[in-house]
């Protein structure tokens, strides 16, 4: 890697060679309201499953946009689909549908790795 003369944080780096943006594109196709997400974190703050696990929809949305789908694959179905996030969302995003669609693609193998 070229030394640009400054430190970089590993977790803040996007490696374009390993991103898979097709998942996010498919998501937008199926649930257009995902595009209006402003990553405010209201969903994660109100989440029942978030009390017990590190399931965090804000983070999942960010990772999804960045094309890093492997990191949230194991936790995507921790959600109880209770709908609190949807009721609280200030932008009216269909959060439950996002979870269901992401889960379907990740676990039913609609998108290959």
């Amino acid at each position, binding site marked *: 890697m070229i030394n640009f003369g400054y430190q970089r944080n590993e977790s803040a780096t996007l490696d374009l060679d390993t991103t898979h943006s097709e998942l996010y594109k498919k998501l937008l196709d199926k649930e257009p309201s995902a595009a209006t997400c402003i990553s405010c974190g209201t969903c994660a703050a109100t989440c029942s499953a978030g009390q017990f696990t590190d399931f965090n929809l804000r983070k999942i949305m960010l990772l999804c946009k960045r094309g890093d789908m492997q990191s949230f694959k194991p936790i995507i179905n921790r959600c109880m689909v209770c709908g609190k996030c949807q009721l609280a969302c200030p932008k009216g995003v269909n959060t439950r549908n996002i979870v269901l669609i992401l*889960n379907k693609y990740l676990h039913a193998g609609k998108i290959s790795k």
Partner: protein
Amino acid sequence: MQERLVNSFDPFVIPYTFGLIFLLTYLFIALIRVIQALPNDDKFKLLKHIFSLKIFKSMKEIFLECLLHVKIWKKNWTLGYMHTALAFGWFMLIILGHFEVQLFAPHRLNLPWYPIFFRYFMMETETTMQGSFFFFMMDLTLLLVLSGLVLAIIKRFRRKLFGMKRTTKLRWNDQIAVIALWSIFPLRFLAESFYSEISGGSFLTAGMGSIFHWFYNFTENEIYIRPIWWAYSIALAVFFIMLPWSRFTHILTEPLFIIMRNAGIREEHRNSGYGKVEIYSCSRCGICLDPCQLVSVASLRDSAAINYTRHLRLWKSEKAHQAASICLMCNRCTKACPVGVDTAALKLNTKHEVVTFHTDQQYDYLTSKTAESGAEPAIAKTLEPTDVIYFAGCMTHLTPATKLAMTKILETSGERFSFIDEDGSICCGRPVLLAGARKSANELMKKNAELFKQTNAKILVTSCPICYKFFKENYDLDMRVLHHSQYIQELLKEGKIKVDPNGAKIVFHDPCELGRNSGVYDAPREVLKSVGELQSTAYDGAESLCCGHSIATESLPYRKRHMIANDAVEKLTTDHPDVLATACPACKKAFSETNKIAVKDLAEIVAENLKC
């Protein structure tokens, strides 16, 4: 009456006979396939029902619904008359036709075409007048059918006369069947009129026949009027052949559907034989279109119950799933359906077939003692024994005024209670079930039931109608499950809490899950009457609207939800009430967002006016 022709056959009976044989063969195969698709215990239920006295109840229902269409009469008289005239009229034509053959030519009963073309083969002479009663009856029934037919044609152009704002669009297969059906009776009328000089007739056919005779003496040149019998026979054949591929399949499946339903068969896990019969029993009458708010407010016609069943019929599972995932499951369509097709159950099965949400590790946090953050989670604590447990529900935590009001009411009542999900808890499981993941729901149910049992409580009170319905119907709890409206009503009745009436004008909105889906209509009204002046609206009780924020939908866009909520608030507040009361956190949230009127949960209204 006596036989006119020695020969009991004429080539024009061939199309009709072919159509009939085709239809009967098709039906026989379909029936066997349906019964094969039923699970074994359902087959047993069906057999048990057929050989018990309860079959008479089913027979009565078949007579009232399939022939007289009583439920449609209750909706609109003209619409009811149209359906009765066509269904009951045609049935009577068939029955009376067979009676005639039985009486006057019993040796011809083995010929399937004989009763249908009876007037061609028979004649009446001066000496044989015994048939005149049947002539009269047949003409009267034919008149009934023809009047229904005229109404059916008018309905295509002026549906508002029939109390319908919307009706179904006909596809090509339905169009062929409808044209065939519409031509059957006029052709029969013409054929019998032309032949009335030969075979005899009553007021309708003989009257028309004498008019024809006035123009030309057809009886001398029978060859000119013979083709009308051909046309009649072909129309019948076309209708019979198109019947399995058109909306008219319901004529044959509905009786079977009623018998199966009365036998106690339900679709529980996947759409099997019963589901098939249910889908084909949908007559596409379009009565469910007007009640559906997705159609009337959100212009999503494709999601209406009839279009969903059509997707299923055409094996378009992708589209069916789309319709199912948009549906709010408010059940307004099921309530309105004259056949009683429960599309909510079918939609749930459609989702269940598609959604793969459950895995073994999915909810392993339910049983772990420590949360990943390190703190002891609320659901891992052991609960103290108490009399009443209050479970606010996920949604209620987002309308905190309701849970504060409930705590105040419970404290005032002096009951020994515990607020078990004060620090948060897990979901009841109904939302995930409605999303199509039954196994996931089962895990949540198991954990919740375990938590409730620790308390040895006698009463479980919840503020969320979604939880209420699920706790009441799907959990096997040995405690009374009450929605907070019912519990407050009991507290008021027993004098444990008292309220000061404040005379405010209140309109109550029945939440779908509490009203239509659980049958709790009176308790919230009784409670509100004790506080203020309850105004009635056109949308009370079973007619109540959906707020649009139902948890059953996954993909309905927020904009459409908001449109539905706005429309509902406008309709509910035409009498300018002071408060719009409801009993569901989702409804409260939906209506509050419209910013049109003060929206309160009934618990809040009671808590504000508590006499301490």
